[in-house]
């Protein structure tokens, strides 16, 4: 309006120029915005998990020389009284001259995978040089080529690995993963509330325990234990949909009738302490740690029919360029005395032969602890849930989540 009203032709010309400049600035901004959003969308697309090449990403260069970034689970290494520093880690840093950035960043295999898989698929640094993941998740990483190859000859201590862990179906010869700790899935109860104790998974369904039972949201432990109870060995290749659904039906029925109060991840420990749960399907090391803090209130047992065995595995992501240093760290933790020190704190099964002898020096009271140094008899009662195919994993995960209502 002002433009038309202006009587001066020069001024009119000037304003027209300003107008066109403004227009082009706007257009430019618009183009910039469009380009930016397209790029962002493209990044989201690949990051969100569209088809990645099956050949797998190339070896990475991520990280900083002299520094190792290690992602582990909470309370999964020896800690000093300050609950922050780890004596073994401190000793390793001193002897190797490396800096270890230790973080308790993993509290769930799936969530951790969900957070880093986009970068893994694109070959971008995920921010860690060492990760600690459970068998089935480790299998997924190895299968997709997300792990660096480890030079076992540079890690002489790793020949100490227990024979039953030296070869696993997803990583024959252990060139991509090495066990950090193992543990049992079994049943546990509060001694005062369940004086008679429990012998089988079916005992959890006793009427007097109604509403005070909790089971794990980890499908392989909860379903694995129910399968054992039904006479099916979850480690064998012979079971299929029928056996899985039979076990799932038991879980569904016990949730529906209120026997199972809730299906929990790690937080079942808090419910045991608060008394909301008096009998659970849980993990061996957890119950041991709870007992230290709560005057031996609880008992853990492997059910008569059998229990699950799982391991968490150290792996170097393909995106990390610090493989050599990571190998040094793994090698260090396969030293029997170091392994015994860690086991004395975390109370899980150590994968290192000779750690039992070393434990005599570290803490003699733990030498005969079946849950840290299981005997052949105990090991014969437990089995690893077999590795599922991709289709099975999708199907069973969906069915399990549906049953637990999430």
């Amino acid at each position, binding site marked *: 309006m002002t433009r038309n009203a*202006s009587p001066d032709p020069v001024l009119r010309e000037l304003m027209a120029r300003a107008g066109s400049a403004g227009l082009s600035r706007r257009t430019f901004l618009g183009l910039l915005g469009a380009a930016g959003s397209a790029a962002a969308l493209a990044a989201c*697309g690949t990051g969100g998990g*569209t088809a*990645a090449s099956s050949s797998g990403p190339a070896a990475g260069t991520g990280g900083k020389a002299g520094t190792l970034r290690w992602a582990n689970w909470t309370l999964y290494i020896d800690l000093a009284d300050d609950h922050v520093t780890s004596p073994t880690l401190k000793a390793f840093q001193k002897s190797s001259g490396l800096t270890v950035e230790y973080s308790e960043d993993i509290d*769930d295999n799936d969530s951790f995978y969900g957070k880093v898989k986009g970068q893994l698929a694109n070959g971008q640094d995920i921010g860690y040089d060492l990760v600690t993941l459970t068998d089935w998740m480790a299998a997924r990483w190895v299968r997709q080529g997300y792990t660096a190859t480890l030079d076992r000859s540079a890690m002489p201590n790793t020949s100490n690995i227990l024979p039953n862990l030296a070869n696993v179906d997803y990583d024959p010869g252990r060139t991509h993963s090495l066990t950090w700790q193992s543990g049992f899935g079994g049943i546990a109860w509060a001694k005062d509330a369940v004086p008679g104790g429990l012998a089988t998974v079916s005992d959890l369904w006793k009427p007097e325990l109604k509403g*005070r039972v909790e089971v794990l949201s980890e499908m392989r432990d909860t379903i694995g234990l129910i399968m054992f109870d039904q006479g099916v060995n979850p480690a064998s290749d012979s079971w299929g949909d029928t056996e899985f659904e039979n076990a799932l039906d038991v879980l569904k029925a016990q949730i529906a009738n209120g026997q199972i*109060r809730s299906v929990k991840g790690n937080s079942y420990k808090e419910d045991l302490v608060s008394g*909301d749960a008096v009998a659970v399907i849980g993990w061996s090391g957890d119950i041991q740690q709870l007992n230290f803090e709560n005057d031996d209130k609880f008992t853990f047992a492997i059910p008569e029919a059998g229990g699950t065995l799982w391991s968490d595995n150290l792996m170097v992501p393909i995106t990390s360029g610090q493989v050599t240093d990571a190998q040094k760290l793994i090698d260090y933790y396969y030293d029997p005395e170091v392994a015994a020190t860690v086991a004395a704190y975390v109370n899980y099964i150590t994968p290192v032969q000779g750690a039992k002898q070393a434990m005599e020096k570290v803490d003699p009271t733990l030498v005969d602890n079946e849950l840290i140094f299981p005997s052949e008899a105990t090991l014969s009662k437990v089995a690893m849930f077999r590795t599922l195919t991709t289709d099975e994993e999708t199907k069973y*995960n969906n069915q399990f989540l549906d049953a637990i209502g*999430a």
Partner: protein
Amino acid sequence: MSLLAGLGAGGGGPAPKERARGAGHRWLLAPGLVYLTVFFIVPVGALLATSLYVPVPGGELGQYQPALHWQNYVDALSQFWPQLVRSFVFAAIATLACLAIGYPMAYVIAVRARGRSLLQGLLLVLVIAPFFTSFILRTIAWKQILADEGPVVAALRFVHLLPPDGRLTATAFAVVCGLTYNFLPFMVLPVYASLERLDPRMLEAGADLYASPVTTFRTVTWPLSLPGVVGGTLLVFIPAAGDYVNSSLLGNNTNTAMIGQVIDARFFKVLDYPTASALSVVLMAAILLLVAGYVRRAGTEDLL
């Protein structure tokens, strides 16, 4: 402004200045627009696109390819409508409870404590104080308070409000209580802000005109506080409907699962991005519709 423009048109000189000033105002929007584009429009676009993806045939877990598979919405809704409905019911109950508890609180702080600024400040700090601790920690603390062996259950059993084997955690009651507790300040503060401006002489006038306190409240106080009430209900209802912390910490996963929990599980547990995205879109659309209807009914010109 139009007066200025008219003056400018006569003089010739100020006109371009005027124009430049208008453009400058528009540029002030740029940071906000860029921010919204990058962090809202693009993600929502990605979300919409992902909700229509299909799995790569024979691909790895969590691998999807672009498609226009509208069936994802049908599947997601037919499987998860109970959780969706439950989320809105829980959020609605929590909102009403927040209003019932929060309105009197805000009234006392804004009207009764008026003139005593120290008391007023202290009460407001008490309302906000819970925010000094983490949301998660506060919710976990409630789990301890409401535990079977805890004081609340023991007291309720003693007075026979709960049967001897009754419990509070892992029930819908606990989840709604958690939502009410966690979002209460979002109700109190906007209502307080409205009531704070309430002129006490209006209440006196009501009394002078022989209106009972109830009538005065109904015809004077309540309508004047309505903008705060509308703002508060929105601030409580919207986050409560999508909340998953309370339902996963205080609930028992089957009878109390809310939609946020389902989206979380779909996204992280089974890497089912299309279903998780479809549910997110449905949740957003449902909230938008409910809120639009509510705001239209409540008439919130005063809010703006």
